[in-house]
C-alpha cells in the first residue's frame, strides 16, 4: 500500500502547485517574451555572420556532388524506428517531415569525437576522452530562452546503417532552406538548416513555435556522419562543428551491424 499512500498524500500538496499546473505556461518555462525576441534577432544576425565567415574561409558551394539526398516523405509513409519504451521496442512512425539518405556504403569507419570548442555555458562538457554522443540537456537552465530544452546534442552515425533505403529523419520539425557545403579544412560534406515546429493551441497551452538548427557533417570516404543540433544558434553550431576532433576507433561497421536503419535528428533524450 506504499504507492497508494504516496498517491493519496499528493492530494494534499500545496494548492498553488495544483493551480499552476491547470494550464501550461510557456512564459514561466522559458523566460520573458523579450528574451525570446532577442534570441530570434540574435539568430538572424548570427546567420549573416555565419555566411560571411563561410565566404571568408573560401568554402565552396556544394550542391552538385553532395553526399546527401533529401526527400519529403509521403504523409502515410511508415518508418519503423527503435523506441525502447514501446512494448515491441519499435514504433511505426508516419508523417515525417524530411528524409536524408546517403550513398550505399559497404563499410563505415566507426568514429568518436571530442569537442574542441563549446559555448561558455557548456564549458563543463569539454572533456578529454572521446565521445560517441554528447548531450547538453542537463545544462538547459543556462539558456533561459530555449524553446525545446536541448541546447546542443551531438551524435555520430554510420552511412552503412542507412543502406537499402534507411534514412535519417526529421520527425517533428519542418526544415527551412537547406544549405549544402564542403568544408575543405576538415574534408567533410555539410548540410545544415534551421527548422521549426508549431504546436496548435490545446486545453493547456496557446499555440507555440519551437525552433532549432541542425547540421550534418560527413566524410563519404570513411562513411561516418556527425549530427549536431540544438538551440545555441547556427553560427555557434557551425563553430562547434568546425572544432570537433574526430577519431577513428579502428572498427568497421556494415549494414548487418545495425538492427535499426532509421534514426531521427530533431532533438533527443538527455
Amino acid at each position: 500500500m506504499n504507492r497508494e499512500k504516496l498517491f493519496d498524500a499528493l492530494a494534499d500538496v500545496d494548492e498553488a502547485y495544483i493551480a499552476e499546473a491547470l494550464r501550461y505556461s510557456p512564459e514561466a518555462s522559458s523566460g520573458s517574451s523579450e528574451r525570446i525576441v532577442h534570441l530570434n534577432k540574435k539568430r538572424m544576425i548570427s546567420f549573416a555572420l555565419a555566411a560571411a565567415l563561410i565566404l571568408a574561409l573560401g568554402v565552396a558551394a556544394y550542391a552538385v556532388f553532395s553526399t546527401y539526398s533529401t526527400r519529403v516523405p509521403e504523409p502515410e509513409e511508415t518508418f519503423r524506428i527503435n523506441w525502447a519504451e514501446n512494448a515491441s521496442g519499435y514504433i511505426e512512425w508516419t508523417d515525417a517531415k524530411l528524409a536524408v539518405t546517403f550513398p550505399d556504403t559497404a563499410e563505415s569507419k566507426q568514429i568518436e569525437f571530442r569537442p574542441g570548442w563549446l559555448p561558455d555555458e557548456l564549458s563543463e562538457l569539454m572533456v578529454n576522452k572521446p565521445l560517441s554522443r554528447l548531450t547538453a540537456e542537463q545544462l538547459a537552465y543556462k539558456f533561459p530562452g530555449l524553446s525545446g530544452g536541448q541546447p546542443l546534442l551531438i551524435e555520430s552515425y554510420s552511412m552503412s546503417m542507412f543502406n537499402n533505403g534507411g534514412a535519417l529523419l526529421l520527425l517533428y520539425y519542418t526544415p527551412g532552406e537547406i544549405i549544402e557545403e564542403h568544408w575543405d579544412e576538415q574534408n567533410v560534406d555539410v548540410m545544415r538548416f534551421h527548422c521549426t515546429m508549431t504546436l496548435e493551441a490545446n486545453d493547456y497551452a496557446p499555440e507555440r513555435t519551437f525552433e532549432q538548427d541542425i547540421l550534418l557533417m560527413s566524410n563519404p570516404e570513411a562513411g561516418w556522419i556527425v549530427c549536431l543540433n540544438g538551440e545555441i544558434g547556427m553560427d555557434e553550431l557551425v563553430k562547434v562543428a568546425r572544432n570537433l576532433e574526430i577519431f577513428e576507433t579502428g572498427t568497421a561497421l556494415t549494414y548487418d551491424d545495425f538492427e535499426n536503419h532509421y534514426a531521427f535528428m530533431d532533438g533527443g533524450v538527455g
Partner: protein
Amino acid sequence: MEDREIIDLFFERSERAIRELDSKYGKAVKAIAGNVLRDRQDAEECVNDAYLGVWSSIPPQRPDSLGSYVCRIARNQAISRLRSNTAAKRNEGFDLVLDELEECIPSGISVEAELEGKELARAVDRFLATLDYDDRFLFVRRYFFADSVKQIAAAMGRRENQLSVRLFRLREKLRKTLVKEGLLV
C-alpha cells in the same frame, strides 16, 4: 469569470455557480476523473459528485484557488470510486502511475505506518519547491492529475521519451528527499 465571483455565487446558493464552475474548470475536472477511472459513466458520476462536494462545502469554505479545490475533490472522489470498483474495472493507465510512485520507495522499506498523510504531503511540497516550473508541472500533471505522458508531452511541446527520462529523474530525486527526511523506515 473570476474565482471570487463564482465563489460568491456559491454563497448566494445560485445554481449558476455550478455552470460557471463547469465552464471554467470542467475540462480539468473531467480529465482527472477520466484519468483515474477508465469507465466513462463512472467518470461522469465522479464529476457530478465533485460538483456536489463543492456545493456542499462552499459555504462555509472560501478556497483561495477554486480550480485546485475542485480538482482535489474530484481526485479524491475518483480514488474512492476506483477502490470500490471490481478488479474487472481496473485502469491499467492509472496502475502505471502507481507503479511509478512505488519506485520512490526503496524495496524493503515502507512509508512509516503512523505517518500522517499531511506530513508526507508537506515533504512533497518541499520537494516540489526545489524544482523549476517545467519539472513541477510535469510531476503534478503526472502524479496529481494522473495524466498520461503523451498528454503532458502535447501540453508542454516535448517528446514523450524526453519526459519519461525526466520523470524517472524526478522520482529518484523524490526518493532521496523522502529518505533524507526520514519519512521512510
